[in-house]
């Protein structure tokens, strides 16, 4: 993506942003995997560890933001490089939000672990997998500049949305049948919602990848 330039220092700065961005992506991917595990294995230790990771992610966000602003101010990039910096600034926000959702899931998992399991989780791990896959593939598409994969991620977001709706309906029946389950069911409902948001952020990243490669804005338009 970094095209030939007259100034090699500029290249170094751009690839540094890219490296830090992908590193942040890797950390966020790990957080998704770990918070799913914390939930499924009912591990409070793991949940605590994820909550502790949030600080690192926030710090990375600030650092990448600063780097991007620095490049904008000093180099005044144009065309492809400008698109890349704009995209980095947006992706960083999406990644940080995903990190936040993971922390929220971990917090809910901690609460859920205090009580017996409401029901065997079947759709939840499926949703978690779908969301994790979406994030992984969006970042892969970013690495390879792969528009095809990016477009597929945008299309597949519907699957996670449907799973979320299904979960909400199912948990509602639990709550209506037995009021003792309300608290736990509400927690699972919110976890489902968080996972759905993670997939949405992945879609945002994928849309940005399309913009970066083709210079075409596909947001808010049917794919």
């Amino acid at each position, binding site marked *: 993506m970094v095209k030939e330039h007259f100034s090699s220092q500029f290249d170094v700065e751009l*690839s540094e942003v*890219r*490296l830090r961005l*992908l*590193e942040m*992506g*890797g*950390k966020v*991917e*790990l957080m998704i*995997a770990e918070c799913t595990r914390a939930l499924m294995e009912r591990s409070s230790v793991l949940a605590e560890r994820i909550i502790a990771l949030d600080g690192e992610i926030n710090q990375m966000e600030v650092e990448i933001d600063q780097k991007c602003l620095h490049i904008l101010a000093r180099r005044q990039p144009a065309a492809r490089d400008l698109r890349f910096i704009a995209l980095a600034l947006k992706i960083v926000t999406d990644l940080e939000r995903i990190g936040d959702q993971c922390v929220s899931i971990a917090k809910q998992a901690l609460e859920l672990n205090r009580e017996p399991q409401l029901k065997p989780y079947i759709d939840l791990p499926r949703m978690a997998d779908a969301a994790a896959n979406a994030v992984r593939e969006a*970042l892969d598409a970013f*690495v390879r500049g792969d528009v095809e994969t990016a477009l597929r991620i945008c299309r597949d977001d519907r699957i996670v949305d449907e799973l979320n709706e299904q979960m909400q309906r199912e948990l509602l029946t639990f709550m209506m049948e037995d009021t003792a389950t309300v608290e736990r069911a509400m927690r699972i409902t919110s976890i489902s919602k968080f996972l759905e948001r993670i997939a949405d952020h992945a879609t945002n990243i994928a849309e940005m990848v399309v913009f970066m490669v083709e210079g075409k804005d596909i947001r808010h338009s049917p794919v």
Partner: protein
Amino acid sequence: MKRKVIGAQLLIIALAGVFLYGYLGRVLERCRDAELAGPLLQGARTELLGAIVISQLLAAILVALCSYLLCRASAKSLNAVAAMASRINKGELGTRVAVESGSEVSELARAVNEMALRAENQLERISEEKNRLDTILRGMGEGLMVADPRGMITLVNPAFHELFALQDQVEGKALIDISRHPALQESLREVLASGQERVEELQLRSGRERTVFTHWVPLVDHGELHGVVAVFHDITDIRQLEKIRRDFVANVSHELRTPVTIIKGYAETLLAGALENPNQAARFVGIVHSHAERLASLIGDLLTLSQLESGTVGMESRSVSLPEAVEHVVALLEQKIHERRIKVDCSGLAEAPAVLADPGRLEQVFVNLVDNAVKYTPAGGSVTLSAQTDGDRVTVAVKDTGIGIPSRDLPRIFERFYRVDSARSRDEGGTGLGLAIVKHIVQLLGGAVSVESSGQGSTFYVTLNCSGKPSDVIRTSQRLALAVNR
């Protein structure tokens, strides 16, 4: 080159001209001195001048011809050497030029030939070295990666591709483009910054989930960092085995402690005064007895299993009739079968060929399988045994109409202490080792076990070798010997 030759020719002609002109001038001067400059002499002078000009022209042509011929001869051999040099330059190291003895360029040709030969040998050695290195890298079970100081990958081996589930070429890419695992980035940065070796264990998620032991070594030459080598050793299986061993120890302690606690509890109650009450005393002693019994069978099973696993157990290998063996087993379990009103059908075994086995051990296999089938089949159900021959192998099926096994438990059912429903299994007096023992015995007999299950009961399959042909007997006993040795 040619220009130089022409220059030399012109020089010779010019020199000859100057010399002749000087000579002529001197002759004319002498003539004037002698005052013999008459018309006669004037004519002779003109003639002389003409002759001189002609002879000079001739000399010039002769010189040109000679030098042309000479130059052409040496240029030809020089051209040959030049052509060879340019072919060597293009990579044709096998090229040689013919050396003409006595020729001026023969020395040069010889030197170039020698140089070509040395270069050829050198290249051969280098490519041999490279091939050897390639073979080593390809054959390595560990994934290997070399990166330059900027973190760009310069070399990987096939095992690395496999470990990270990569399809594309990775050389020239940054590590972050291959894997976004945070620990990998951290290690790379750390090693590049500190120039120190680093060892760590990490969980990889690209492709299958693997536990990987990584060793990072900086490439330092004369105090300068040239890059980093990372070796990835897949230790998933080792960690898995360690876990199984840990679980086994935990399971054994748990299984042993339960009956001991019960025996101890009832014995204490008896000592504390229950002995005085005959009714209670008899009941409590009965409980102590039954748990002591369970403890004994558990220890017996553990011993059997450890013997089977260590391979120290002696296995007989002779022809055993399947119907007879199974009938004996059914007779042993008669009481239990009768109590539960279960129908055991062995008619499917009537046609079965004799198998090659240790009769006592084979009986143990069927006791475990039939006992299990009876245990997990509700009253009034049935257990059916049948056999199917396939070449020199026979597969015995033990089919029940019981509660079945959930499909997620099927792959682990032959593991030690693995129970689908632990409370139920213990109520039935199981040790949790029966199927593990079955598996080990059948494997030592050169056979195999498998299981199928649905909601309507389970079927266990035991495949054994027939004792029909003598060659089979030898083969099986060899395999047995091998298995035992192992």
